[in-house]
């Protein structure tokens, strides 16, 4: 029998609230991987830790704010982005990251998402997309693929999901990428890139939710979904945005990569001296 290895420190101790661990997430959940990438990007950023701020809404991904040992604001459902806008405009020296889920950001917070992208406010958004509302037990979300079963679509979803990159590109974001929880190096690289990118930047992270979503859709374990990503993901940076829809059940590729990287002028509050 192997001897257990006891560790008394972790490479991310400087940036995680160890006193809040264990976290609330289920076995097989992908949010921890996305948080790990965010934490590593912060440490690699060269931006003082005291200048990093994380803002989240409600849901499983929204709990990330409670585990990061930086200034962290766990706000109301859907309102992380406008709260972040207030922080950023009141103190432009802060590096503001919104870390939240697809339901929080695209359903109840959908209006704030598109308007923040339209204004091109200088914040970074990490959106964990697990295709359902996980915290409340696996209901239909704005990203649930057509036909997928959830606890509120027991006969299969009759709705079409959002295509995040298409939506964000049309709304005016400066940077839009999509990765999955197997693409940890790409994900960390792009989060780091977003810190330095002026304007609104957004990365979608496809993540397994075996307990909420997978079990009803024949992806029973987190590992099964990771293998599915491995088999079907295709890095396709320049692909037409309208082809980026996702259907986990269908035997078709899941496109990942960087889809928008442009330099539209970021939002700037009006100052008289700039006009005169």
């Amino acid at each position, binding site marked *: 029998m192997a001897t257990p290895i006891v560790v008394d420190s972790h490479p991310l101790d400087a940036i995680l609230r160890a006193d809040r661990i264990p976290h609330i997430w289920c076995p097989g959940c992908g949010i921890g991987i996305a948080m790990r990438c965010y934490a590593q990007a912060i440490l690699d950023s060269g931006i003082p830790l005291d200048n990093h701020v994380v803002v989240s809404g409600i849901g499983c991904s929204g709990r990330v704010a*409670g585990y990061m040992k930086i200034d962290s*604001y766990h706000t*109301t459902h859907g309102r992380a982005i406008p*709260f972040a806008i207030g922080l950023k*405009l*009141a103190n432009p020296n802060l590096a503001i990251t919104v870390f939240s889920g697809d339901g929080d950001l695209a359903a109840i917070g959908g*209006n704030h998402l598109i*308007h923040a992208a339209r204004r091109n406010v200088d914040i970074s958004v990490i959106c964990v997309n697990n295709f359902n509302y996980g915290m409340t037990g696996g209901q239909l979300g704005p990203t649930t693929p057509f036909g997928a079963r959830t606890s509120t679509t027991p006969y299969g979803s009759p709705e079409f999901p959002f295509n995040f990159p298409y939506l964000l590109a049309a709304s005016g974001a400066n940077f839009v990428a999509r990765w999955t929880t197997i693409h940890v190096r790409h994900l960390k690289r792009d989060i780091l890139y977003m810190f330095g990118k002026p304007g609104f930047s957004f990365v979608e992270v496809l993540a397994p939710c075996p307990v909420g979503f997978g079990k009803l859709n024949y992806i029973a374990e987190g590992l099964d979904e990771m293998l599915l990503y491995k088999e079907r993901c295709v890095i396709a940076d320049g692909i037409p945005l309208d082809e980026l829809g996702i259907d986990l059940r269908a035997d078709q590729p899941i496109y990942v990569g960087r889809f928008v990287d442009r330099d539209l002028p970021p939002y700037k509050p009006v100052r008289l001296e700039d006009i005169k």
Partner: protein
Amino acid sequence: MTSTGVLVGKHFYQGDEACAEGAIAAGCRFFGGYPITPSTEIAERLARRFPEVGGVFIQMEDEMGSMAAILGASAAGARAMTATSGPGFSLMMENIGLAVMMELPCVVVNVQRGSPSTGLPTLPGQSDVMQARWGTHGDFALAAFSPWSPQEMFDLTVHAFNVADRYRVPVLLMADEVVGHMVERVVVPPEDQIPKWERKRPDPKRKDSFKPFLAEDPDLVPPLAHAGEGYRVHFTGLTHDEQGYPEMDAEIHHRLVTRLVEKISHNAEKIVRTEDHFMEDARIVVIAYGSTARSARRAVKDARREGVPVGFLRLVSLWPFPIKQFREIADQVDAFIVAEMNLGQMALEVERHVRRPVTGVYHAGGAMMPPDRILEAIREVANRGDTHRR
């Protein structure tokens, strides 16, 4: 204009403009809002004035976003404000609750119009005063003021910021369309005469042991650390312990919510404002607030000319309710009359605190209360001395 942009001197301001100038004088430098009649002139004036004074004006996509944005700005250290009317006020309730729970200071102006729903967008009302007290879900306490003139739109905006910062609480300025659109003389005092109550701030020497929700002082208000100062704080709308960490525990929840309520009720004397006239010989007291108080004062003067011993008490603050002031006068008088532009809201509160008959003079809104209706009620109460309700 002074270096900080305060327009010291005598002006002829609309109430909404005076509110905007009060915000600038109070040091407010962030406004997030959404246009809505009859409050829009506040946003319009700040959109023009903030670029002159280094403030941030942003027009948000809706009132939920406006409320969230001012809380974010407040968390970063700014004095922040939004302005709205009934329909927008309803949408702000969500994050007014977050402001209570995170103890983030902010000022919300509601220039009330006829309600419910879309109601009377261009005409006055006072029917949101109970929503101000109980609108967001849960037990909580906050402060709300009711200006009756453009001068008070200025003065009470300054006071609202001071109360918000001092007690880490959302403060509501419950104006009405008449006061918001009325134009009158407004005196902007020199800056050294504008009161400034500071936010209580943490001791940088105790950074490592700082607990952002530990209230060590008798006033029950914890010091506020801003984003970016190195305290590595966690703020959440969830029930939390003194460190700010979420806790699913009945005892911690009870302790937190009780403190949030008591930090206002225990400090009520410093927050509350009332104004009274002709109280020396009063047997009847007329209670009113906002524009209705202007009608009430006129009615009281007319009744006194007729020889009726009637006094006048104006609620400058609505919440916390001036319980102490009412208990003091309740034993000296026979009856109360409450005049308000709703179907009897603050009258309920008056009834709760006085053991005397309370007569209401109510109108659902849409026009300023005519003084004659109040005068008529004074005569009836004086003649019959009963509890007749109108």
